[in-house]
Each structure stands twice: as structure tokens, then as C-alpha cells.
């Protein structure tokens, strides 16, 4: 059983106990524990069930590579699934639950799958569920969905806050082990601005566990001294609990800082995403130990040799009293020696190498440990925990030579450099035969804008072996990074211990001739339950590309992204394909290195600052007066202003009736307003709009259409000429920024020699539409200036003072009534609004929203950009030839509109649609035509673009685009409804209300 050791545990505070719960069970740990070490100290070997077969699984590793030990962490709104216990720091009151089992961790119904595993090989789901086709959607998928997924989704209402931080440095060093420290020091001493980040809470990586000397001091002391030195340097920033998550183009990197995961409820943000722009990036990311593939290598108690060593030294936790070590390299002997020195039993070290180990092996033997060369594990005994191992010859097929009782197995299949960050942005790898691993190819780094490498690997991440080579490699990396930044490196690398180790020997399967029964229990990917036999099957079925085999078997596709399984898996694949490993290659390494929280990516964007909400100067009044808002771009505009129990529909009808009968106000502040000024402004306006704008006189307004260079209508609005050189362009609400950009694009890129300046002054003005027969009267109450029908004619504008506020008044009409738009400085907008409401009281004034505006314009047959247009409509489709100047040589879109398809008389054209029964046509409905098209679909001959109930006419009105529409007045079309049934509508003129414009012209 696993338990706490009294004397070791350099990272934990034995003097204090803290409480936590696992599946409701109250357990105790120490400050400094990870959740993993605390669980193991409480003999909680079984921590979860695997994804596919629901096999009992225990902790395998001690760091970010852990595939098995994922828990649901926290409760309620702080609940989070799939949290790795090995990287979760223990805190007082931590609660967690195990995953992927029912009804309980110890007794799991789904474990029946493991007995069916013979029938659930790789590709099982693909093969099984493809026929009959309709079954996927209705039978298989819902069933599989039930059993898929590891953790449960988190709950809404996360109370924590998150943030980003933008940081810039010359050299970013990722990894705070010996290599990272030395690289950072070398770069900093050369004068570079350095940031050093480390994913765990501790500096020094695994060197304090493995021992050795640097610069004449024990390595742990050297680490402390170097940290102190770096902390004293003003050009160095150190961050632990900050993982290098990804490396992107041109030295951009993400650092994922877990600021307050270990102190929940504190006032600090929980996670901080560092968005770092670095000149050079040094990846000192270390190496990960590989498991060995033998039968039963997933039984709880079988762990990486280095992890068992870590738990003993760092946390004072022993995994078992009797630990069998199985290895293909010398490093695992360190685990045996460490445990033996702590007084624990090592029944045997199984060294798969016929020739055995070097100096460390001798040391082990000297301690009285039995060492068996050329031997391996045939099979692990035990279910929910290890009870023993069956020993065999590595060279054979697994005939059992001896059975040895034990409660833990420490395995080591060699070490793989962590090349993820090197590879994220295109760094290539080479296969190192001697160490049987991929390491960065120094000739093919990720390249920056100038074609030069910007990532430098260091230490074990670069394939360096012993401490001496790690330190010197890291020193060189730090200096190279500084040099690339134009700094002058100085100093030599400190001396460090060397170790003479016997060469490792690749062991991809144990024993090498293992039969199918053993291979079916030899796990490669623990989390996704991929076995040696699955990869071999994939190869036999033709999945020769490593990327295909990955997807077919799901090898490396779990949340650990194959940190333990990838190399073993592709070695098995290579063997099955009878080709060398480099020819098989690796799958693609993609950021992030380990999963980062979605909240950290969202950063501050939650709650009231989830996204910007644009507010007009009158927004506060709208809110206080019950406005029913709708989003228009990032603006919130009142859709209508319901009163009391009134619904939306009633409110809209009331607002329209009031406007037509007397007086109502529209907050039109969101309309785009762009000043266009200069000697060439008229010329520019003429190419921008389809109609003639240069002839507009100061003091006058003109409605215009704007097309893009493909001829399609993109914006419309009223242009006012302010003076000889200056136009004020009104755009749609959504078009303000894009049309301004469109103007600048043409001015800067095409007509750079035209003397025109533009300025977007949309937000400078609050604009109020004053509409209705009493609109003139109410403004006259507030001004001494003359706005009579003679002084300010239709489509004219002038400057007046209203309620003491300087204003422009435009006599324009979108509602079809006598109406004005008043434009005042935004800071006075609310004052104007209030003054108009007060003055209009005698006329029953009320505000109206965007829906009333839409209905009233539709009653008048005015088009709306986004309703009558959708990016494929040209002005000619809308019968707006009157707004297309015949006198101009050119305008944007002219040439495009002459193309054959655009000039085709068969294009659908705008008409009014009047339902026979007075009902409202469904929005977007199509008019059917006889017959079917090539796809067997019903032919169509038109569609509805705008449709409303008109309270003015007491019936449904609509506009639509119809084939030869204007030539077919009076014809009746049929529009099928989504719920069945048909609405019949007659083609009519699109102007339903006041055809002669008498209302607006008074």
C-alpha cells in the first residue's frame, strides 16, 4: 500500500495537516502536497476509470504528462472536470470526485467493457455503427453520447475573474529546471531582458531529486543560489505556476499563470494569460519518461520510475513496500537506490538489456538489490492494485520464469525530450538512435520574419543527458539567444557532474515476442485505452500514415495528447509497417502544451464587460423608461417602448399610430456620420455614390446609394452638403465604421492624389428624429429660428438653436410624415431629448423604436439595407434606376453592373406584396413556381424581403423580389409556410401609404 514516509518530503510541511475530500471521503495532506501525493499518502491508488473499457486506473506520473488521474475538482460554480491531480496543488478544503464510472469508482458497471475488449478493437465504432445509415442519428449516436466523455461539464456562474497581460522581452525562457535557470542567467548576464517561466510551484525541475553537483555545490543549493541571483537582476522577471502554453509566429508566446488555483476565494484573479512577445524563446522544457509496454502495465501501482522517486523524495510518499523496477536504461536504478536507502524493499530490478547497466547497477548490487539482466515482465498481477509480477526473458514470448509478489512496479522505457514548444511553430525533429528519441533538429528551427530561427532548445529538451551536458547546453542556448538580440555574451558555463551510464536499449514491447493475449493487455495510451494490438491492427488495415493511425485508434487524442504514448505508439506502428521510426514520423504538436482554461482565454471578457455595448446619450432614459432593446451591431437600440402590460406588437402599433397622428421621437444617434472635405470632395462623392452628389447645393440634402466594386448595394443614406468643399455623409447604423474604412481604402490606396480628407464624427452628435404632423410645431416651440415650410423645404437643412442648444436640423423623412432630424453635440443629447418630450406633451409625444421605424418605412415602400439587400442585390433589382446617374463616367460598381448577369432582365425585382386575406407573410418565404429543379427541389420565382403588419392599413404588407415582378402587377403568388399551408399574395406597387408624398410635404 502507498503511505507517508516520516523522514523525506522536501516540498511538504510535515508539521501542518490540511483536509480535503475525495469522493466525499475526508482525507489529510500537508501544505506543499500535490493532490496526487496527498491521495497516494492516503493509500488512494485507484483514482479513476479509463475512457473506453472503464479499467481501474491509478496515478502513473508526477507531472504534466499524467494520463490517468483526472478528477472533477471543486463544487457548484467552481466545479471543473478533467483536472490532473499531479499538477493540482493541495489546499485546505479541496474537494474532488473521480470520473467516468457508474455507480461508484470501486464498482463500475461500465467495466464490463474490459471483458468485451476482444470485441471492441480499434475502429470498432467506425465499423459497427455505419449501417444502417439512419441508425446513427437516432439509435447509435444518442447511446454513444451517453457513454462518451470523461468529466461532467462545469456549471454556469464561475465566480472567479481572469485576465490577460501583455509582456515584451528579449528572451523568454520556458522551464525553470537547471537548464532554464542557466539559460536565463546566461542571457541576463549578457544584458538581455529575460522572462523565465516555470509550470510548477518550484524551481529546479527534477534535479534536486536526481542529485549531482553544479559549480561545486549540491544541485539543490545551486538552484536556490541561482534563483536568488536572478531575482536580484533588474532585467529578469521570474514566474512560477506559469506554463509555456504555446509558441506562435514571430516570437509570440502564451504563458498560462495559475495565480490563485491554490488559494481559492482570494482576491487575486484565478488565471492570468501572459501574451508575450519575445525576441528569442529558449525551450528548457525537460524530458518525459516513457512507460514500457507489457501486459498489465495499467494496473494501479505501475508507475514511471521517476515518478516513484519524486513521490518519495519530494513528498515523502512511498507507493509500496515492495517495488519491482523494470527498465531499459540506467536512470531507473536511481529509483531503486533511493527507495532502498529509505528502507523499502526492491525485490528485483529487471533490466531488459542483456548486457545490463553501468555504474548505477553496480551501486544497486552493492546495496544488496537483486538485478536480473535480459529479463522483463510477462504480466502484472492484480486488478485494482498490483499484487505481483510474472518475470520472463525479454528475448522470448513471455514464458513465466518466476512470480514475485510486490505492491508497486517502477518502469522506465527511456526519456523523450519535451519538444512541443519547439514544434508548435514549425521546428523540425531528428531521431536520435543512441537515445531512441526525437530531439530538435538544430538546422530546422521555427523561423521568424527574417528567416532566422527564434526558438532555441536547451538541456534535456534538446536531448542532453547528464547534468554537465545539460548545464553547458543551456548556457550556450542562453548566450545564443542573447547574441541574437544583439547583446554580448560573457562568461563560461559552470562545471557540473558527469555520469557514466551504459547505453539504453529501445524496448517497444515486453517481451519482444509477446503473443496476442499479452499485447491486448499492453497499454500504450492509458486515457483512451489504446493497446499495442490496436496499433498493429490499424497498420494491418492500411492506416500507414501516423496521422491516420492516430485518428483510427485514438492514440494520443486524449486530454494528455499522448505525452506518454506517442513515441511508444509510433514505434509499434513503425515495427508493424517494417520501416524505421523517422520514416513514420510524429503526429503534429499543437498548442496548448497542456489544456488551459477557456476562462483564461476569455480573460476579462465576462459579465458586464463580456463585450462592449455601445450606448447613445439617451440610453439611460431608454433604460429608465422600459425600452425593449435589440442589438444593432454593438449598439443597443430600443425596439419599442412597451407600457404596462402591453406586448411588443401592441407597443409597436401604438407608436406608429401616434407618429402618423401627431408626434413621436426616434433616437437616431447611431446613424453613421462622416465628414468628407476637400477640393476633390465632390468628385470623390460622385464615385462613391451611384447618383450625382457634386451638384448638391450647400443647405440641401440628397438620398444616395453606395455600391461596392462588384456592383452590389452596400449602404444608403442622406448626404447633406455643408459648404462648397464639405459633405456630411449619413450611413446606416451598421455601416458607420465599414463605410469610413471603405472611403479611406479608396483614398489611400487608389486615389491618393485626390485632395479629400474624411473624419468619422458619428459619436459627436446625438440625433433625434422628430416625426408626425405636429413635428414642426414642437420644434417651433423650442426655437426662435425660422423652420417654416418656406424657410426649410423638404430635403433642406439649416443651423438653428433648439432649447438653447446649437443644432443642425434636416428636413428629411423616413416615416413618410412631416419630420425633422435634429443633430446636437452628444453632451447635450439628453437635454434635447428631455426638452422635446416636455414640449411635445400637449401632442401626446412618445418615443418610437426601431420596429415602428421599419414598419413605417415599409408602408412607404422605402428599402432597408440588410432587408431588401443581402450582398447580392444591385440597385437596379430594386427599381432604383432613378438613383443611378446616367451623366457620370464612372462610379464604384458601374462596370460590374454592366456585366451580363447583372444586366439580365430575368433578375428578380422589387415589388409590393399584398396578402389576399390580410395576414402577414412569413419573413424570407419563397414564392413557388411550377416544376422542380435539377436537385429535385421545388422551383421558386421570388422571395419576401420585408414583411410586417401595418397598423395604418390594418393588414399585412410586404416587399419582395420577384421574377419579372414589376411587369406582373395583380398576379397572385403562392408562399408556402414552414408549418405547411400556403399564403397567397398579390403583386402590387411597393408604396402602400401616401403614394404622392403629401404627408411629408407640408
Amino acid at each position, binding site marked *: 500500500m502507498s503511505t507517508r514516509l516520516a523522514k523525506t518530503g522536501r516540498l511538504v510541511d510535515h508539521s501542518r495537516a490540511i483536509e480535503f475530500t475525495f469522493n466525499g471521503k475526508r482525507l489529510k495532506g500537508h501544505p506543499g502536497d500535490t493532490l496526487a501525493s496527498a491521495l497516494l499518502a492516503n493509500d488512494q491508488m485507484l483514482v479513476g476509470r479509463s475512457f473506453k473499457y472503464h479499467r481501474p486506473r491509478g496515478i502513473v506520473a508526477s507531472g504534466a504528462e499524467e494520463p490517468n488521474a483526472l478528477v472533477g475538482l471543486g463544487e457548484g460554480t467552481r466545479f471543473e472536470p478533467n483536472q490532473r491531480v499531479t499538477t493540482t496543488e493541495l489546499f485546505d478544503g479541496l474537494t474532488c470526485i473521480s470520473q467516468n464510472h457508474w455507480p461508484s469508482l470501486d464498482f463500475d458497471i461500465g467495466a464490463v467493457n474490459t471483458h468485451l475488449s476482444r470485441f471492441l478493437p480499434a475502429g470498432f465504432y467506425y465499423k459497427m455503427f455505419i449501417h444502417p445509415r439512419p441508425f446513427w442519428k437516432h439509435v447509435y449516436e444518442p447511446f454513444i453520447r451517453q457513454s462518451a466523455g470523461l468529466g461532467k461539464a462545469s456549471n454556469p456562474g464561475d465566480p472567479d*475573474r481572469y*485576465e*490577460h*497581460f*501583455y*509582456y*515584451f522581452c528579449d528572451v523568454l525562457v520556458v522551464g525553470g529546471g537547471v537548464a532554464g535557470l542557466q539559460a536565463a542567467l546566461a542571457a541576463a548576464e549578457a544584458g538581455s*531582458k529575460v522572462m523565465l517561466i516555470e509550470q510548477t510551484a518550484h524551481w529546479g525541475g527534477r534535479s534536486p531529486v536526481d542529485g549531482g553537483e553544479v559549480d561545486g555545490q549540491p544541485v539543490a543549493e545551486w538552484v536556490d543560489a541561482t534563483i536568488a541571483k536572478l531575482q536580484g537582476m533588474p532585467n529578469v*522577471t521570474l514566474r512560477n505556476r506559469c506554463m509555456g502554453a504555446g509558441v506562435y509566429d514571430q516570437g509570440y508566446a502564451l504563458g498560462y499563470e495559475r495565480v490563485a488555483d491554490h488559494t481559492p476565494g*482570494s*482576491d*487575486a*484573479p484565478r488565471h*492570468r494569460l501572459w*501574451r508575450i*512577445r519575445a525576441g528569442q524563446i529558449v525551450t528548457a522544457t525537460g524530458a518525459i519518461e516513457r512507460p514500457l509496454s507489457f501486459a498489465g502495465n495499467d494496473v494501479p501501482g505501475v508507475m514511471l520510475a521517476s515518478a516513484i522517486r519524486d513521490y518519495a523524495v519530494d513528498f515523502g510518499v512511498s507507493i509500496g513496500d515492495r517495488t519491482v523496477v523494470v527498465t531499459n536504461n540506467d536512470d531507473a536504478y536511481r529509483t531503486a537506490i533511493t527507495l532502498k536507502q529509505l528502507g523499502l524493499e526492491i525485490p528485483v530490478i529487471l533490466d531488459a538489456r542483456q548486457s545490463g547497466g553501468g555504474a548505477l547497477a553496480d551501486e544497486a548490487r552493492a546495496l544488496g538489490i537483486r538485478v536480473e539482466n535480459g529479463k522483463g515482465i510477462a504480466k502484472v498481477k492484480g486488478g485494482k492494485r498490483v499484487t505481483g509480477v510474472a518475470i520472463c526473458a525479454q528475448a522470448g514470448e513471455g514464458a513465466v520464469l518466476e512470480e514475485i509478489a510486490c505492491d508497486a512496479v517502477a518502469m522506465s522505457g527511456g526519456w523523450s525530450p519535451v519538444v512541443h514548444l519547439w514544434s508548435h511553430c514549425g521546428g523540425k525533429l531528428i531521431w536520435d538512435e543512441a537515445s531512441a528519441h526525437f530531439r530538435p533538429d538544430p538546422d530546422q528551427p521555427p523561423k521568424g520574419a527574417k528567416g532566422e530561427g527564434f526558438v532555441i532548445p536547451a538541456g534535456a529538451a534538446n536531448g542532453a543527458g547528464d547534468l554537465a551536458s545539460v548545464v553547458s547546453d543551456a548556457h550556450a542556448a542562453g548566450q545564443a539567444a542573447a547574441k541574437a538580440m544583439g547583446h554580448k555574451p560573457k562568461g563560461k558555463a559552470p562545471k557540473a557532474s558527469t555520469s557514466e551510464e551504459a547505453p539504453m536499449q529501445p524496448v517497444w514491447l515486453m517481451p519482444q515476442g509477446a503473443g496476442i493475449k499479452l499485447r491486448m493487455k499492453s497499454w500504450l495510451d492509458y486515457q483512451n485505452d489504446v493497446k499495442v494490438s490496436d496499433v498493429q491492427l490499424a497498420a494491418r488495415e492500411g492506416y500507414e500514415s501516423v496521422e491516420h493511425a492516430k485518428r483510427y485508434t485514438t492514440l494520443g487524442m486524449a486530454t494528455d495528447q499522448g505525452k506518454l504514448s506517442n513515441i511508444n505508439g509510433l514505434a509499434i506502428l513503425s515495427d508493424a509497417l517494417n520501416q524505421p521510426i523517422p520514416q513514420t514520423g510524429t503526429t503534429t504538436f499543437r498548442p496548448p502544451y497542456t489544456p488551459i482554461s477557456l476562462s483564461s482565454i476569455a*480573460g*476579462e*471578457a465576462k459579465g*458586464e*464587460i463580456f*463585450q*462592449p*455595448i*455601445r*450606448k*447613445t*446619450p439617451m440610453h439611460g432614459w431608454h433604460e429608465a423608461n422600459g425600452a425593449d432593446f435589440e442589438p444593432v451591431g*454593438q*449598439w443597443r437600440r430600443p425596439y419599442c417602448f412597451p407600457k404596462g402590460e402591453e406586448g411588443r406588437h401592441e407597443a409597436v402599433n401604438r407608436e406608429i399610430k401616434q407618429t402618423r397622428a401627431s408626434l413621436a421621437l426616434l433616437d437616431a444617434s447611431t446613424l453613421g456620420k462622416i*465628414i468628407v*472635405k*476637400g*477640393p476633390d470632395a465632390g468628385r470623390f462623392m460622385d464615385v462613391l455614390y451611384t447618383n450625382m452628389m457634386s451638384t448638391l447645393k450647400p443647405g440641401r440634402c440628397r438620398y444616395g446609394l453606395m455600391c461596392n466594386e462588384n456592383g452590389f448595394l452596400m449602404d444608403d443614406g442622406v448626404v447633406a452638403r455643408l459648404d462648397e468643399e464639405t459633405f456630411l455623409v449619413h450611413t446606416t447604423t451598421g455601416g458607420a465604421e465599414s463605410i469610413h474604412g471603405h472611403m479611406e481604402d479608396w483614398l489611400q490606396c487608389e486615389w491618393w492624389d485626390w*485632395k479629400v*480628407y*474624411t*473624419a468619422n*464624427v*458619428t*459619436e*459627436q*452628435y446625438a440625433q433625434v428624429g422628430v416625426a408626425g404632423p405636429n413635428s414642426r410645431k414642437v420644434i417651433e416651440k423650442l426655437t426662435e429660428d425660422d423652420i417654416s415650410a418656406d424657410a426649410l423645404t423638404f430635403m433642406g437643412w439649416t443651423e438653428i438653436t433648439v*432649447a*438653447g*442648444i446649437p443644432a443642425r436640423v434636416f428636413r428629411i423623412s423616413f416615416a413618410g410624415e412631416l419630420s425633422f432630424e435634429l443633430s446636437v*453635440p*452628444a*453632451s*447635450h443629447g*439628453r*437635454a*434635447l431629448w428631455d*426638452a422635446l418630450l416636455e414640449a411635445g406633451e400637449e401632442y401626446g409625444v412618445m418615443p418610437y423604436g426601431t420596429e415602428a421605424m421599419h414598419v413605417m418605412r415599409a408602408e412607404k415602400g422605402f428599402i432597408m439595407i440588410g432587408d431588401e439587400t443581402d450582398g447580392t442585390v444591385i440597385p437596379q433589382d430594386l427599381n432604383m434606376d432613378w438613383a443611378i446617374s446616367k451623366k457620370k463616367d464612372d462610379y464604384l460598381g458601374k462596370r460590374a453592373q454592366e456585366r451580363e448577369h447583372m444586366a439580365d432582365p430575368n433578375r428578380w425585382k422589387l415589388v409590393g406584396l399584398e396578402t389576399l386575406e390580410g395576414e402577414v407573410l412569413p419573413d424570407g418565404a419563397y414564392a413557388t413556381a411550377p416544376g422542380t429543379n435539377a436537385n429535385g427541389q421545388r422551383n421558386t420565382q421570388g422571395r419576401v424581403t420585408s414583411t410586417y403588419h401595418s397598423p395604418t392599413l390594418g393588414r399585412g404588407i410586404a416587399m419582395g423580389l420577384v421574377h419579372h415582378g414589376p411587369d406582373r402587377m395583380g398576379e397572385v403568388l403562392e408562399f408556402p409556410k414552414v408549418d405547411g399551408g400556403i399564403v397567397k399574395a398579390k403583386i402590387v406597387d411597393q408604396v402602400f401609404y401616401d403614394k404622392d408624398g403629401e404627408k411629408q410635404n407640408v
Partner: protein
Amino acid sequence: MSEAITPLNGARFEGLATIEDAGLTGMITLRGDLSSKEVKAAVQNAVGLDIPAQRQALSGQGTAVLWMSPDELLLMCPYAEVAQIIAALEGALKGQHFLVANVSDARTFLHVSGPGARETVAKLCPVDLSEAAFTPGMFRRTRMAQVPAAFWLDEAGTFHLICFRSVADYAFNLLKTSALPGGGVGVYG
């Protein structure tokens, strides 16, 4: 005439940094040939300041000139003096090709001050705000989370920050959230 009201109406927050509505401020967009002696003279005459270099701000007593683009400046002045300064600019530049527009009401103007000011802004804007890189008098047009923003730094270490008026609440709340106690990053100040 009614009293002009800023969108934040004097809002203030004290945390790691102090965020405050800087109040009504005159702002005038001037587009023209920034290298011409006429523009130089007009600006000097209007606010008593020179033409700033690229990404720089020049400030005087209640006035400032900000470099917005190769052909655009933003002039800051007392709110009440805008009309008079515009008239002076238009007079001085008569016959030149230029554009002058009053944008005083189109913006919200904030001060971010105190020891946490650099970190508060660096959580939202992709700008190197280290003391070595961003020095007083520097000006940036950039992005603040999801909206456009511009700011300069004065000798006292206060950021003078401009956003569009419609997003005043959003901008204030962003800065407030970034300056909440407990959120110190520990790299600046």
C-alpha cells in the same frame, strides 16, 4: 443652454490604480500636411504647441497635441474654447487643404493614475508599457480589450486615455476590473 454632460459623469474608482472621468475636454481633429509651415503655425497659434513626432504627444497647460497618423492630429484644449480655436485654425489654414472637426463630444476621456497604472493598462492593451519602453510623452493608438483606444503618459505617470463615447461604460469597467485589488502583476511600478 443646457449643461454638457460627459458619459461617465464624473465616475471614479480607486484600486491598484485610480480610474477617473477626466471631464469635459475640447478635442479637435486636424487633418492636413503635418510637415507644412502653415499647419505648424496654425497649431502653434491655436494651442501654443509644436507638431509632435510620430507616436508622440506634446502637452501644455490644459492643452495637448497628439500624433494620430501621418496626416492627422488631435488637439486637446479646454471644452469652452473649442469654437474659438476651430475658428482660429480655419482662419489660419484658409486656402490650404485641411479638415478640422470638433470631436469633443465623440469621446470619453479618462485618467489612469497611481502605482498600478502601467499594469492596469497592460492587461488590456497590447503595448510594451515597461518603464524603459514607454516613457512620458509617448502616445499610442491601440486596442483596449475589444475597443479602439489611445493614450499618452505624462511626467507624473498618469495615463491620459481616450475612447469613443458610446463605450464609456465598457472602458471604465474594463479599467476598473483590471485595477481590482489582488490583481497586481508585480512587474511594473
